[in-house]
């Protein structure tokens, strides 16, 4: 309990910093169970709204700012994610899920426009421009992948003309996030990955992580009671690294068994032979250093960050007080301990490499990781390529408080859900948990399904949500080259309404994406199908047409020219020739 209070304090301390300077960055490291390490990078810059309007961008990246101005985007959230957050073991998500995205690319924005059509036109402009900027297929977010959520997202910033804003949301669950998306991401930073904590980010480690999400969030912020507004841009990278995997040397990344004499065996177990070994569970925290884990050194602080106040501490590590940390640097590092010593923060020197060295250590105490407010899992049930059903299991682990959530599904058009089969069951009561439903059905090739449910889950209860769907069969040109792999279905987004979030980011949980196998035609034979079907139709039509236009006569009345056989044909030719000659 005490530790979870500390955790909340850590979050509050990290979030509550005032916007005194124009650019801040911070890296928070937190060891997780199973020898993993969570690294949360956060970069934040501010620019006053007036200066932004005059194309005076300051620390705000110009290329990005101009896209926002061109598309009239007032608030924007862009996510690139890979992997799954293991909530059962790792506990609560970084930023309570408020900076996380569904697998692939997720984008939502509030655009200023007079009509819905204008908003959609601007949305297409935005997606095309962002696609070019981030080297991602964001331009494939078309009408079939765009929805207009009503409950699941709330604006994070303060908007003056909220009535003219349109929220549009699009996902690309199939998108493979990789290095080509990281490079433009780093280019947006004032220090561009050359100095500061961003110098740790490399594609080799980031996309090798068990879970990683890159986020860009732009929102307007207004001081309480004053008319001056600013535009805040926040870039975050959260990654969970497997320490053993991350520590493998770059030139020899293949794991190999240790030589027998280096193995540490559990000798308390009975052995029959000398060639076996029970691995020894030493119960220690593994040793690691920053450079080992990230594969490159931390090149000091970015000189553009604020140098005074809380915000000047760029590197924080959330570990029990007893854990030993050695700071290796040629410059000067000041350490401050916060939140009952569970958070150590360092002010990095400019222009000098810094490394943190943590030795292997046996720990007496450990940090208690707070439990998430909601657990969620979603899967496809049924077999065959004709139909199936979706099952989402959402549980509330709290024994005292009920949670209220919004469940958002954005399904592709070729997955046709039947809303009349939607069932929501609680394991504790027979009461219906559905408080509100918003449904916009899919239209073939024009629009995807958009389903939002407001649900209330009583304490210590599990909600099971199921509905049936049909799998459509597509035209053969609509299948991707790997048609039998299946189609990706975007993750469900769950927003926790109550208990309320402590900051503007909100509390979110996203399920994993799903793989939907569709029936496939035979891609190799369009010509054969066209020919065979046409043959059957021609047989039917030809037969009936023949019967309708011809006249029946007795066999002996058949004129000689119409008779079959060689003789008939020859005579026919002769008659025609004669007619031709005489006529000519």
């Amino acid at each position, binding site marked *: 309990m005490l530790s979870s209070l500390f955790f909340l304090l850590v979050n509050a301390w990290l979030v509550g910093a005032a916007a005194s300077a124009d650019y801040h960055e911070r890296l928070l490291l937190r060891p997780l169970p199973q020898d993993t390490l969570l690294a949360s990078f956060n970069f934040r810059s501010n620019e006053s709204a007036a200066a932004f309007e005059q194309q005076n961008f300051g620390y705000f990246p110009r290329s990005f700012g101009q896209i926002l101005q061109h598309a009239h985007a007032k608030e924007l959230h862009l996510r690139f994610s890979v992997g799954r957050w293991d909530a059962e073991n790792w506990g609560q998500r970084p930023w309570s899920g408020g900076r996380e995205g569904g697998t692939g690319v997720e984008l939502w924005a509030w655009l200023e426009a007079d009509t819905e059509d204008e908003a959609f036109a601007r949305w297409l402009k935005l997606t095309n421009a962002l696609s070019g900027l981030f080297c991602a297929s964001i331009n494939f977010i078309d009408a079939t992948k765009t929805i207009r959520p009503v409950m699941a997202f709330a604006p994070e910033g303060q908007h003056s003309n909220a009535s003219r804003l349109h929220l549009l949301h699009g996902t690309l669950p199939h998108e493979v996030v990789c290095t080509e998306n990281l490079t433009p991401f780093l280019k947006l930073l004032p220090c561009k990955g050359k100095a500061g904590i961003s110098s740790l980010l490399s594609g080799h480690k980031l996309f090798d992580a068990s879970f990683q999400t890159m986020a860009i969030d732009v929102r307007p912020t207004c001081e309480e009671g004053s008319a001056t507004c600013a535009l805040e841009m926040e870039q975050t990278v959260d990654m969970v690294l497997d320490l053993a995997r991350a520590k493998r040397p770059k030139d020899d990344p293949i794991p190999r068994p240790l030589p027998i004499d280096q193995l540490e065996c559990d000798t308390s177990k009975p052995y029959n032979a000398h060639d076996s070994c029970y691995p020894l569970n030493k119960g220690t925290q593994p040793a690691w250093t920053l450079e080992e884990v990230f594969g490159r050194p931390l090149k000091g602080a970015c000189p553009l960050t604020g140098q005074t106040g809380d915000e000047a501490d760029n590197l924080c590590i959330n570990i029990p007080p007893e854990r030993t940390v050695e700071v290796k640097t040629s410059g000067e590092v000041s350490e401050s301990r916060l939140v009952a010593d569970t958070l150590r923060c360092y002010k990095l020197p400019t222009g000098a490499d810094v490394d943190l060295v943590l030795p292997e250590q046996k720990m007496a105490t450990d940090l208690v990781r707070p439990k998430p407010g909601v657990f969620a899992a979603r899967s496809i049930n049924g077999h065959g390529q004709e139909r199936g059903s979706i099952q989402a299991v959402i549980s509330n682990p709290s024994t005292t408080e009920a949670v209220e959530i919004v469940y958002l599904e954005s399904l592709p058009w070729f997955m046709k859900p039947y809303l009349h089969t939607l069932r929501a069951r609680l394991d504790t009561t027979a009461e219906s948990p559905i408080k509100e439903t918003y449904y916009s059905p899919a239209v073939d090739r024009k629009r995807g399904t958009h389903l939002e449910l407001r649900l209330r889950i009583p304490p210590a209860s599990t909600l099971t949500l199921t509905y049936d769907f049909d799998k459509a069969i597509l035209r053969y040109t609509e299948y991707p080259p790997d048609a039998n792999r299946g189609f990706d279905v975007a993750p469900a987004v769950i927003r926790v309404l109550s208990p309320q979030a402590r900051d503007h980011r909100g509390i979110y949980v996203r399920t994993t994406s799903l793989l939907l196998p569709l029936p496939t035609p035979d891609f190799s034979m369009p010509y054969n*199908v066209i020919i065979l*079907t046409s043959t059957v139709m021609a047989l039917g039509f030809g037969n009936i047409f023949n019967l309708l236009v011809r006249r029946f006569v007795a066999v002996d009345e058949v004129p000689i020219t119409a008779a079959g056989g060689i003789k008939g044909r020859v005579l026919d030719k002769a008659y025609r020739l004669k007619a031709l000659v005489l006529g000519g």
Partner: protein
Amino acid sequence: MAIDTRQAIDTRQAMDTRHKVLLFGAAAAVRLLLFTVFPALPDLLAGRVDVSTPVTSFKRLQEGVFLYTHNVSPYDGGVYHQAPLLLPLFSLLPNPAHAPLATNVFYTAVDLASAHALAQVADSGFASVTPWFASPRRHLRWSSAAIAAGFLFNPFTIATCLARSTSALTNLAILTAMAKASQGASFTFILAAAFAAYMAMHPILLFPPLTILLYHARTRNSKTTPSVSPFVISHTLGFCTAIAALLTGSAFLTRSWDFLSATYGVRLLLPDLTPNVGLWWYFFIEMFDSFRDFFLAVFWLHAASYMPGLTIRLHKQPLFVACTLTGVFAIFTPYPSIADAALYLSLVPMFRHLFPLMRYTFLASASILYTSFLGPAFYHLWIYAGSGNANFFYAITLVWSLGLSVILGDSLYAALRDELDVERPELRDKEVRRI
């Protein structure tokens, strides 16, 4: 002597009525028994592609009713493609998920009404005798009870009824239109024909031959020939008015005209390529995008082109034309199911007098039989077992269509041969040639 004959007729009629009551009771019992003994069977059949198509599926109808009762327009989505008037009708019935009895009884009643209409058509005798034509083999006929039994105990009809496919309602409308036309009842004929066209669009093609049938019935009933032009104009106007009234009522009911594109638009443009027993789905899956519109137009023109030719050539036998057109619908429309085939195969026995003239009955019936067994098996191999591909099921639908078109062509040959025997009695039982 005369009294004896009348008594004989009376007893025959009484026998017939008793037969019919027994027959209808047995058919209803079979259906209700299947509904109650196998409660999972209706949903299983409703999910089969050969029984339910996107435009007749009961599951989609339930979704439409659900959206309609929750004030979401069912036509603003890609699932519901059926007629708007079905929505209030089925929202009155209790939810079939909890209380299926009302729906089951409703569908059983629809089937019985269809069989009754079919028996009326058979009773009218227009299959072999019209005022301008009398088949020399007209003594060869089955009783109306036997024909109704052929409809009621046809496994395809029973499967359609159990799947609660809305094509049962279309079939009822078509059969009622035929029955009313053969009785000379103008008003009810126009209503039924308009309802059939409203439900499924392509039955509009049945209107010309059935109007001729109505004309024949009027001629026979009144022993005078009504003048043609006023007759045709008044009935066409009535038909158009009825359809316009149905469409306007639907627009009023759903408060928009969106249903036109969601129902008839889907039948015309085929956006939903769910497999069925017809020829269109695989062709348009594999069609190149630039030729899609062209071939849609060609396929529709082809399906519609049979009506004028058949009506003109066989204007003396309008009932045969209507029957053949239902066969055309079962093969060449975009979303056919076994319900359409059931309708056609139940109408064919009325033309018992043509059977001796048909040449390929064994081939056709064997191919229909073997496709009805292999079709589900090959579909399973493709979709569930994964050991076959789409071509397996496609090949079976080709054979199915071929089998039906053989029956179609063969019966047409027989009908034309039958007409020839009237025109030139000296050629009877002789070999003939077509030139």
